[in-house]
């Protein structure tokens, strides 16, 4: 399990505390009532802070599953310093 995935799971777990690790990895906004717009705003803010990433508004509309966010971060859309605050 890579570090990015673990840290992303921590973010999801903070916002969706009822989900197990397996459920988080499979998480998809279209299948979850609790993943509403407030959860999205909070999740993206948390990910930006945790990964030093800057998620563009146009990108965020597609980032509606754990898998897509994980791929987005692994594609290099984050700062080189893990955990650094987004500036």
């Amino acid at each position, binding site marked *: 399990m890579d570090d990015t995935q673990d840290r992303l799971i921590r973010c999801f777990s903070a916002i969706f505390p009822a989900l197990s690790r397996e459920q988080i990895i499979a998480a998809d906004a279209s299948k979850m009532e609790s993943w509403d717009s407030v959860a999205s705003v909070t999740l993206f803010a948390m990910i930006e802070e945790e990964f030093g990433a800057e998620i563009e508004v146009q990108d965020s509309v597609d980032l509606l599953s754990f898998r897509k966010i994980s791929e987005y971060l692994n594609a290099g859309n984050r700062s080189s310093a893990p955990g650094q*605050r987004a500036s």
Partner: protein
Amino acid sequence: MRRGHQNIVPMKLVEAFEILREEQPVNARSFRARLVCGFTPLHLETFFNAHLRSIFSDRNVEVTSGLYGDFWGNFERLDTTNTDVALVVLEWSDLDPRLGLRSLGSWAPSTFPEIIGNAKARLSLLTNLAERLSKDIPLVVSFPTLPLLPISFSAGWQASAFDLELRAWISSVALKMVEIRNVKLVNSERLNQLSPAANRLDVKSEIASGFPYKLAHASTVADLMSRLIISAPPKKGIITDLDDTLWNGILGEVGAGNISWDIEHDSQPHGLYQRLLHGLSEAGVLIAAASKNDPQIVGEALEREDLVLPRSALFPVDAHWGPKSESVGRILKTWNIGADSVVFVDDSPMELAEVSANYPDVECILFPKNDPQALVGLLFRLRDLFGKSVLSEEDAIRRESIRSSQKNGAGGVEDHGGNLDEFLAQADAELTLNFSKEPLDPRALELVNKTNQFNLNARRYAEAAWDAYLRQTETFLMVVAYKDKYGPLGKIAVIAGRSLEKTVFVDVWVMSCRAFSRRIEDRCLQELFARFQAEKIVFDFKATPKNGPTGEFLARICGAKPEPQCSLSKEQFLSLQIKTSHHVSEVSNG
């Protein structure tokens, strides 16, 4: 409470959520905070919730907020009956929408007078609401923290009349509000240090979701405001080293004439340290010296009239060649305060370690003798450790009363063959009782929250809870001041409770350790029996690791080891035939 005076590091959002996932205590009292702001409370509410749960770990914390975009309505509609504290976070756009990013109202220079006029009117409303609401609950207020947008026609590096006028109105209102009891304002200077102005505004978030703060800024604002709700009790005394700390130079090597603390001798940081100690001393903090030195040469050095910290501010001065911990022990005994109320400052890590090993509760701080930048950090740290919201008369007389009790008090009893009755009879002791609940005396709560040894149950109160307790009609408050021919001790005891059907229930009873051995506690009971025509007094006693003197006193008068809700009948009390010779008078506030 979990935390004390530690450095402030912004909490991350994920950490805040993790705190919120922790179980809240079962059957605990609730603590209800109302966040009043005009923007989407979003992450700020989360950070408040997390910070308040860290502070009030024994309570069920609940943070609620009002409607988006309606700061003034949210403030006016505040339900003070169901709120323990209001957290008021004002931003520029609450003064006029054109000062924010979500409005497209005109920035034409012709609109400036109107914008200023709106801001003035709303700031005036803020003061009125604060005056009204703070009568019921405490308010913690943050004035605008975001950068002002480039509205004025001047270039950004030039101060504009528009910006200055807006800020002047803010300052003028802040100055009025800081005087209102029950209102506390965030110190913008400290916020500037912790959260640089350029890193506060989150434009994307403000436009997309109406939340204008970057996360680190939101966390810092929430942290500072939470700290204003209930402050950690201030420390009471500093024990300072002398050589290379209070002054530059080793006294035994260079002599009293060659130690220094000024720019001329390249030793200004020592003078700056002395100046802070003097300021603390004048604000009621006890200052003592512990030095490995020849006492005679220390005496010579302290006679120097150019010391910034005058000799009179230091009491006691303990100079010898033994371990510093021995000095600390003697000084604590002289001051009669707990080790956890004291800070020890020395330039030697070894001395700090030796004191810390013997007195782990003493806060040991290194004096950074070769690092002027760190010295300023030390000044801020000491100010934080000893910070108070207001100064009381007692702060001004504390040092002298300890000095005088050393000279006359203990020795006085001995001069009377150790006979306390005889000593007290000649001391011209006077007790002044004050039963007023309005206006509330802040010294009463200060005593309740910081007294350890004579404290019935060590229950601590937030200002809101104390206010609510005293607002109950059946609750009484008795504040006791003391003086004798050796000098005044000021307000030294607080008793609060309820009188019901010839029984007095004492919920709170604290007395300063400076007032021990004067039979004040006995006289207080006499007064309670008399004033309320009581036949019985019930004490809400709870033993704590520190309130042994209270337990011993109750055991003496009740005739048995005290238990929770132990009681004393009038008959039992009179049978003790306690002699008290205090002259008692009554005053009221106002």
